[in-house]
């Protein structure tokens, strides 16, 4: 215990203390980014105003999911069983404008800022699931349909701007493509056939 001048405090363990704190924060905090499929629900309709909106049959592409997670896909009159892997291609084929073809949805010419006059399909995808459908299957179907729309948009963006839709920076271009290929997915209220 002989005193030899002022003793310095040993700061060697400072780094350890800081490390400890660092590790504590690494463990207790999260940096995860929330990802997901964004959808917009239709606004609530008062009971007395509920009426059937008339959409021509050829404009509607029906996707039904039953309680055993199986798919029935197609036109009202011509629905087929389908595997989920084929759904994207089928939806793409349906949504792509085919002017003058009776087997596909109606089209209309639309003038859109930034694109000029383009043919827009009036096709709507109508999705209905059972109360017993699993959430996983529901998301897979939503994902495939979103994928179909995204791929069509990519194609169009490639054609007009030479870039993929996701890489477009220009606000007007993004809006224009969104108008030319809208996310036309409607959801009907689920049935309860299979039971829970």
């Amino acid at each position, binding site marked *: 215990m002989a005193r030899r001048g002022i003793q310095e405090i040993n700061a060697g363990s400072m780094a350890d203390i800081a490390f400890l704190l660092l590790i504590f924060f690494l463990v207790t905090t999260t940096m995860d980014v929330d*990802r997901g499929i964004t959808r917009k629900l239709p606004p609530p309709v008062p009971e007395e105003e509920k009426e059937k909106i008339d959409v021509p049959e050829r404009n509607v592409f029906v996707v039904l999911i039953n309680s055993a997670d199986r798919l029935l896909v197609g036109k009202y009159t011509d629905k087929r069983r389908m595997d989920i892997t084929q759904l994207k291609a089928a939806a793409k084929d349906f949504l792509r404008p085919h002017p003058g073809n009776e087997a596909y949805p109606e089209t209309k010419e639309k003038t859109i800022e930034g694109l000029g006059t383009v043919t827009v399909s009036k096709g709507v995808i109508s999705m209905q699931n059972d109360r017993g459908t699993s959430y996983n299957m529901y998301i897979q179907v939503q994902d495939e349909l979103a994928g179909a729309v995204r791929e069509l948009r990519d194609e169009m963006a490639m054609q007009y701007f030479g870039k993929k839709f996701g890489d477009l920076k220009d606000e007007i271009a993004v809006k224009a493509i969104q108008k030319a290929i809208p996310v036309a997915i409607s959801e009907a209220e689920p049935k309860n056939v299979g039971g829970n």
Partner: protein
Amino acid sequence: MSRFKKKKGKGSQTINTASLPDIIFMLLFFFMVSTTMRETQLLVQVKQPKASEVQKLKKKELVSYIYIGPPPEGRQAMLGTEPRIQLNDSYANLNEIRQFIVREREEMSEDEKKLMTTSLKVDQNTKMGIVSDVKEELRDANALKINYNTRKRDEENN
């Protein structure tokens, strides 16, 4: 070459570690600022389904979360295995959702209200019945922007 040899004579030099704590503190502050504390304790098990067409959720302060999933294994004897809805820190019933949305909305400023998003964190094995009920409640509460929380498909290899 002779210049290098001269130094060797002085014996091994120790690296000055005095700035090491500063570096670590810097890292620490970076993590303190850039991360967020886990806010709610999950009372339900949620394993989100995977999807590839995902968008990032921006502006976390405008997002309210609804969790749906089965209770954790330790409490299933008491609570059963049926999926439950969790709002904030407790289990909730369907009819509480509207109130929850109203309360969340009150905390936002006027121009933020229409940007409000509800993120549904739902377990992948949940049946759609309960999810549809929740969606119907959200529709009635006029919280129309929803986000199905998913994991990215290529994030994990299974």
